[in-house]
């Protein structure tokens, strides 16, 4: 059912890694296991919703350190921590740094499966949001220089007459440009255009 997703498991204990692999496959996940963070970084990553199951106690680098390193590398992946000897401060630190869940070994199967599902859900939402933004950026890039000026003026709340005066063009020309902007950006109403401008970071009256 979820073959378009993948779960990465990083744990230095082969037996633990194999058991998690077997459990997650039983509910239909594709799983890729790594014995060390370096191996995970070196492997090619798939552009599909994913989640990382990470052991806290690893040789050379703790799971929490690896979480920080991923943030530095701007690798945005939801993390489910598993640990044999976690304490409260450790789990608080992990959760504050954006972990999805912090599980104590041995954990209940449903707890891990739920956490992984939540992680993948989160990653999917992030990917969708990113994709949408990419599309808007592409559309915005296809506008001419004049159309971009008109769009900025429109979303900042100016009337056609004011825009004509501002850009020193006729009001009819403004209307033509404005229709072009709406068509190219793929919207039909002004509020939709304002929302897109907001996501692109253009100045809008709301901001």
């Amino acid at each position, binding site marked *: 059912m979820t073959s378009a997703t993948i779960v990465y498991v990083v744990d230095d204990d082969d037996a633990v890694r194999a*058991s998690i692999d077997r*459990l997650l496959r039983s509910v239909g996940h594709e799983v890729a296991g790594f014995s060390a963070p370096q191996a995970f970084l070196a492997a090619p990553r798939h552009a599909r919703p994913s989640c990382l199951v990470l052991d806290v106690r690893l040789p050379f680098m703790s799971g929490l350190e690896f979480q920080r390193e991923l943030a530095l590398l701007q690798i945005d992946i939801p993390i489910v921590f598993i640990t044999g000897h976690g304490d409260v401060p450790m789990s608080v630190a992990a959760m504050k740094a954006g972990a999805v869940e912090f599980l104590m070994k041995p954990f209940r*199967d449903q707890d891990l499966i739920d956490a992984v599902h939540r992680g993948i859900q989160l990653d999917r939402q992030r990917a969708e949001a990113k994709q949408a933004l990419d599309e808007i950026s592409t559309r915005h890039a296809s506008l001419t220089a004049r159309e971009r000026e008109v769009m900025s003026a429109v979303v900042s709340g100016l009337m056609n007459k004011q825009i004509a005066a501002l850009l020193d063009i006729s009001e009819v020309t403004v209307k033509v440009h404005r229709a072009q902007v709406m068509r190219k950006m793929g919207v039909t109403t002004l509020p939709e255009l304002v929302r897109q401008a907001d996501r692109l970071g253009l100045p809008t009256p709301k901001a």
Partner: protein
Amino acid sequence: MLAVGIAALLGCATLAAMPFAGVRLEGTEPVLPAYAAGLAVVEIMTGVLLLATLTLSRHRAVTVVAAGYLFSGLLAIPWAISFPGVFPALGLDVDVQSTATLAAVRRLGFASSLLAYAALRLADGPESGRGQSKGSLLACVFAVAAAAVAVSVLALSGVGKLPRFMANTREVAPLWSYVPAAAMTLYVLTAGMLLAARRSVLDLWVTVVVFTLAMELFLLSYVAGGTRLTIGWWTGRVLGLVSASMVLTVLVSQTAILYARLADTTARDRQDREARLTVMEALSASIAHEINQPLSSMVTNAYAALRWLGKPEPHVPEATAALQDIVGDGHRAGRIVEETRSIFRKTGGERELLDLPAVLEEALDRLRFDVARAGVRLAVEPFRGPVIVSGNRIQLEQVVCNLVTNALEALRGIVGRERLVTIRCRREGNWAVISFADNGPGVAQPQASRIFDPFFSTKSNGMGMGLMVCRTVIEAHGGQLWLEPDAGAGATFSLRLPALDQGRDGGRE
């Protein structure tokens, strides 16, 4: 050295004062209260300090000399108050004989206490009895205070019935001459006994005190002819005060040094204990982690197997693989447990030839303060002669410490009778046997069978590892540790270790 120097110095002062001893110093009465107050404070403090040291030291002789100091210090007060011409403003019309009676009782009383001290020192061994309880010390203080008050009241109220010591307010009557003679006799006897018995620093200083007291008395009663307020009389008084202050100084510094050492030892003990604890914690954390890993994958594999089998079309090969992994992890966990055991066994491997009595003594020495603090009497019946065993000194000492500490804790609730721990050592053929008996509540039957189990504890704050570790250590040394089944009241733990020498019929090789 210092003591001899001071004695010599005081002797010189006496000689220097002799030519002028008879010169009267008029109007020096007002100085007398200051002298008496100083004397009283110094003597009372000396007495109290000596009593305080008794909670740690074990000499009943010290009790006597402390009581003497207290008595003498307390009597200095009525003596000064009743001294003729000192407190005219108070309008006290005291009989001249009262002052002299007080002086006589005070001098002879203190001299007797010194003599009793010396006699006890001669009679007792270097360490006899045990630390006195706070109750008996308080009782001693009260008895001395009561005696001092009684003597004062008798002397001050018994006008007309007192012996005629004084001819007038200054000169003594012929009867007085018996007092210094008696005191001198006591001093000489004391000095002789102390020189024979001399064992401790205190003995030495008491000897100095006796010497200066004799000097004082010599000046007061013979050189100054017993006449009060002369140069000889005052010199004697000042000498007495100086020597008393010196004993106090020595006592205070000795006590301070003792406390510093005690604090140092306690701190080191605590460090040792904490270090041991940290090692234990680290060890148990790593063992826990090692066992948790296979445990965790076993649980996860079991869940996975259930899920693969629970599908509408059960997937047997996956479930089989999961079960095989569970078997493998089970064996892995078993190996970890076995390895942990062998680690413990290995640390027991650093063996050397040890003298078991010395090991026992060393361990008991480390517990001395704990035993004293617990108010427990420790009776040891030692081995006769050396017993050689092969073992790890630290581990064996720890076993002794553990067993004695357990006994001390068992006795904590005992009130109203003596808390006693008895350690008996004996040879049984090639075995060296040590038993640790306490007279506490004992071990009830249901607990007796489980008492060596790990994590079993009857104590609210115990880990339950102590006795298990003890038994493991002793068994690793080829011996046994057990709880005596019918030892009467209290609990008795016994251990036996193989001795390497041949015991009584030894020396075959």
